[in-house]
């Protein structure tokens, strides 16, 4: 049982829902929740969404970059990009409003997760709304005052589709190595012409294989397949490449 306490506009289509979930047990960055919607006649639909927020722990900063995304114990945030014909995503990103009740189960998934005990370099590579669990990891690193080196490579279609833009720019200014890639159209004067992530870009912007990063790759299936293949071709250990794919689902 959860209640929507706030809806934030992220882009023209994506929304962040702040959910009050009494008794929430806490979670690791990268985990997801199952959201269940029930129609008046009893029809239900359930889909999984990555959690974008981190839960405050003792000693976590309450001011500074991302402080607003460090939620108190019973509150989580999900960011939803509607998919074509998606009955749940289109409701959450288009209809849901503060005060609405829905059902939430979680946290779920323990593999595509980052925990503060990890000290190795972390390479985050996201495509589209695949940035959501990666954002949670960046926020968790700050919340835990971790000194693990992080880098983020974020591929999206066009300037208007960048989720978390202001926070990412702020974090980049604060020292997070952050590279934005546009695949369809780029702003005037953008150095790299629109196009997908390729080997040259990976070599120029991400941790090298000999730095032994753990790589987290999240996005639509073709994106993840292509990026993971390139990471292996570059010499990354397959055991250090964790993936989360979406697509074909609505």
């Amino acid at each position, binding site marked *: 049982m959860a209640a929507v306490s706030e809806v934030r506009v992220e882009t023209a289509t994506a929304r962040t829902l702040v959910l009050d979930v009494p008794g929430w047990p806490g979670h690791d960055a990268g985990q997801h929740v199952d959201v269940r919607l*029930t129609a008046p006649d009893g029809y239900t639909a359930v889909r999984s969404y990555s959690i974008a927020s981190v839960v405050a722990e003792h000693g976590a900063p309450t001011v500074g970059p991302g402080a607003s995304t460090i939620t108190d114990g019973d509150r989580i945030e999900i960011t939803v990009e509607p998919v074509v*014909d998606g009955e749940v995503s289109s409701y959450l990103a288009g209809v849901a409003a503060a005060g609405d009740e829905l*059902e939430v189960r979680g946290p779920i998934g323990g593999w595509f997760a980052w925990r503060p005990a990890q000290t190795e370099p972390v390479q985050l590579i996201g495509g589209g709304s695949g940035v959501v669990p990666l954002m949670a990891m960046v926020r968790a690193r700050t919340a835990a005052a971790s000194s693990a080196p992080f880098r983020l490579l974020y591929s999206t279609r066009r300037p208007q589709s960048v989720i978390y833009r202001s926070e990412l720019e702020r974090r980049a200014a604060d020292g997070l190595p952050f590279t934005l890639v546009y695949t369809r159209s780029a702003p005037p004067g953008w150095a790299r012409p629109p196009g997908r992530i390729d080997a040259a870009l990976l070599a120029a912007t991400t941790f090298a294989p000999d730095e032994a990063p753990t790589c987290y790759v999240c996005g639509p299936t073709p994106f993840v397949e292509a990026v993971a293949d390139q990471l*292996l071709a570059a010499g990354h250990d397959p055991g250090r490449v964790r993936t989360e794919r979406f697509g074909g689902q609505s």
Partner: protein
Amino acid sequence: MGIVTPGFTGRRRDSSTDLPPGQYLTRDFPVLSAGPTPKVALDKWEFTITNETGDVHRWDWAALHALPTRQVTVDLHCVTRWSKLSTTWEGVALDDLFEGIETAADYASVLSYGGYTTNLPLEDLLDGQAWIAYTYEGDDLAPEHGGPARLLVPHLYLWKSAKWVRGITLTLQDQPGFWESLGYHNYGDPWREQRYWGD
């Protein structure tokens, strides 16, 4: 019935179809894997069955294809809630592979190229319930769907149908596999909606 979500009506797809609880129909074939897709060369490929005393039976690609080819049409149910109906596969029945295997074990640990593991009772692999599949809808099985060969155990959630399968080890004790150690149900019967620990 759960709490009603204001303004939600849903799309009602194919409500006449009998699906396991909590599943919806898809016509796509989504891909879900925890890591990169391994590329396995056929001349290096092998499949083994190891019994509880350590005896190993081995098949290379040619030996696998020398066994009778079975064609099956089955429904797939993924724990992420999609179901895909009437998918057609060709491969080898586990019953044929287990012919001549001596064992008193009750459990099977399945290992894949790339390191993935899953576990299930041995009896769920026998009696026409499981195959090593190498074609899908008439074509060679694509790497992202588990090619060159994957386990197919369609009566359990699809994570049990290990992609890129390379062997089965028989054990006297049940040994939770990859997802089974990360919060997912140890058995995974879609009709009893055994998704997660505690279901």
